[in-house]
């Protein structure tokens, strides 16, 4: 009697172990992911971040934040421009649960674009120095303008402008980047 119980327990145990190892074998990471040295992981995280370089996460740019995520186990919800999409991609990448965006960093906004009111610009070059992605052109005492395709909408040029002539606008859809509406 007791032998029977032990036997069946052992059998169940054996089956569990077998299936468990089979499952873990089947869901093993792909070979190329096995070299998960920190730099590779940082690269991967960095690729997911939106490269707005807005520093809203509290780090001076996207790669520093990626480094902090990997090296210092920083939370993955500190990137408002990336929004939920980035958080879910990061959680998938890192195998951590998704989190709502941290309000202290900012809120998720639609894509925007800085525009300089060219009449009001006094050519102080302060915004040029503030732009993290070199999207503003101009020279001292001359009018400045934003290269629309290169602006990431990070808002970093707003505070330094002494005459408040920079606005953020929603980019107008063009024939080239227009999307079909999602059917409902």
């Amino acid at each position, binding site marked *: 009697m007791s032998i029977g119980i032990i036997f069946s327990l052992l059998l169940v145990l054996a089956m569990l172990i077998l299936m468990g190892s089979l499952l873990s074998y089947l869901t093993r990471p792909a070979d190329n992911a096995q070299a998960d040295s920190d730099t590779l992981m940082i690269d991967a995280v960095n690729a997911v971040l*939106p490269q707005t370089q807005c520093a809203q996460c509290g780090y001076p740019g996207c790669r520093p934040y990626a480094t902090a995520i990997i090296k210092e186990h920083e939370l993955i919800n500190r990137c408002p421009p990336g929004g939920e999409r980035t958080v879910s991609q990061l959680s998938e990448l890192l195998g951590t649960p998704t989190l709502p965006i941290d309000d202290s960093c900012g809120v998720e906004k639609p894509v925007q674009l800085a525009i300089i009111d060219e009449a009001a610009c006094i050519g102080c070059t302060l915004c040029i120095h503030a732009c*993290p992605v070199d*999207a503003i052109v101009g020279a001292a005492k001359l009018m400045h303008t934003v290269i629309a395709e290169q602006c990431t909408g990070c808002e970093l040029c707003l505070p330094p402008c002494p005459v408040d002539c920079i606005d953020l606008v929603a980019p107008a*859809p063009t*024939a*080239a980047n*227009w*999307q*079909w509406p999602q059917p409902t």
Partner: protein
Amino acid sequence: MLNKITSAIGLNVSLGRSAHRKTAPFGFHGGLSLDTNKRALGDNTELCSIISINPPALLTIPLINYRKDSVAPKVQIHEKVKRGQALADNIVSPVSGVVEAIEHCEIIHPGGLRAPCVVIRNDRLDTPINTDTEYRNNKQEQQAVSHDNDNAEAQAKIAHFIAHSTTMLDQAALVGLGGAGFPTAQKLLSSNQDLQTLIINAAECEPEIACDEALMRSSSIQIAYGISALSQLTQCKRCVVAIEDTKTLAIESMRTALDTIDSTAELMIIPTRYPAGAESPLIQNVTGQFIPHNEKPINHGVICINVATTYALWQAINGQPMDSRVVSLGGAEMPNPCNVRVRFGTPVSYVLQQTGNAPADDTIRIRAGGPLSGFDLHSTNVPITAMTNCILAEAALCAPAAQPCIRCDDCADVCPAMLQPQQLYWYTQAAEHDKCEELQLDACIECGCCDLVCPASIKLTETFRFAKSNANYIKAQQQLADDAELRFLDRKNRLEQKEQARQLAIEQRKEKLRSQKKPDREKINAALNRIRSKRHTQKD
């Protein structure tokens, strides 16, 4: 299960010459036998059914190319332009007149977008630009082709064209009239590599669209010359004119025309099955090759040219650059369906008015393009372009609500791109972009077949269009993000270097100062001593 896909392999049309022997089409996967329903052709008996209308007072020419990128204008505001003058790369002025404005105007677009356009005020003179064609005698296009009957002269024109093809194609501003609007010159000039088959696409498989059929019936001889010029230019081994079996009158007139000019082109009668006129099914039908979506037919030795484009080519050889096209007006609510030749840049509303088709009330939807591939217009005040093959007027329609997919697999049965629409739908809904890529969402030609057969009324094609544009958008965003990162890194390096340079400079200055300090020390001490001694003396 769905369709009576009874592919009757070609009609038994007897063809006079052996050169025009009927070659059996290979067929293609999927597709639908739809009711062709070509209202624009009227009662199907008239020989010529293309009406022409006077160009309007104001024409709006969008400055975008086939990839929807905007192109730089070559004219300025208030500049006088002549008919045929280049407004931008591969875009010519359809009338003579004055450039009134270069501004953003609404264009034919499913989103009702605006794009940069040249607005031309028509002086109604149609003064042509001087081209280097010595055959340009007449400015009226009808007259320009009246000499064609003389075969020898036509052959001379063709020879002239072959000799000057690059410049002439450049001036001709030809774009494909099938709907995609790909620049024809680009296609032809890239074809200099061992072209096996030149396919003249005379299959308009979509219901309601009949512009090519009307053109073939009325101008087959010009088309035949155009085909002849094309096959001589490309030096193709084989030239096939593919027509569907339901276009009996067009087949007849094309056969006569090809016979008349002793063309070597074959006439291939293909079964009428949507989307037989789309590039990939057409190539499958004619040559039996399946061309993967990410490869160009030209690399497989095939090019497809729309039959209307060959007509335009012949006009261009006669000195008339492409500036108009035939547009089918159809649909259940079109009072006076017809085919009409329209200059590019003419507003849709003007065309409807001139043909007595102004919509009776605003419940009527005006569509650009066919019932499957087209879309509803947001406004009718948008200019016709080379891609506008059809304008439909339809009553308001409420689409049936989508039900859950019952996995019937009809969609996969009809898909000409051999995709799995059902699974693609699943993954697009879940926004799994890499899965979609794996299942080749990109290969979808947006034909609408799957959408049409789906018993659950799922908006498959619409979803795929969205998903494709969305995937492209995301890719573009990613590209921008990558660029931004590079610029960011550049800037960081630059700032670091600057900082280093500054530090270096500071160091150097300090160093210099330090080295100068030693000899000065004594002078300073001496000066200090002097001052002290002075103070002492003053105190005393």
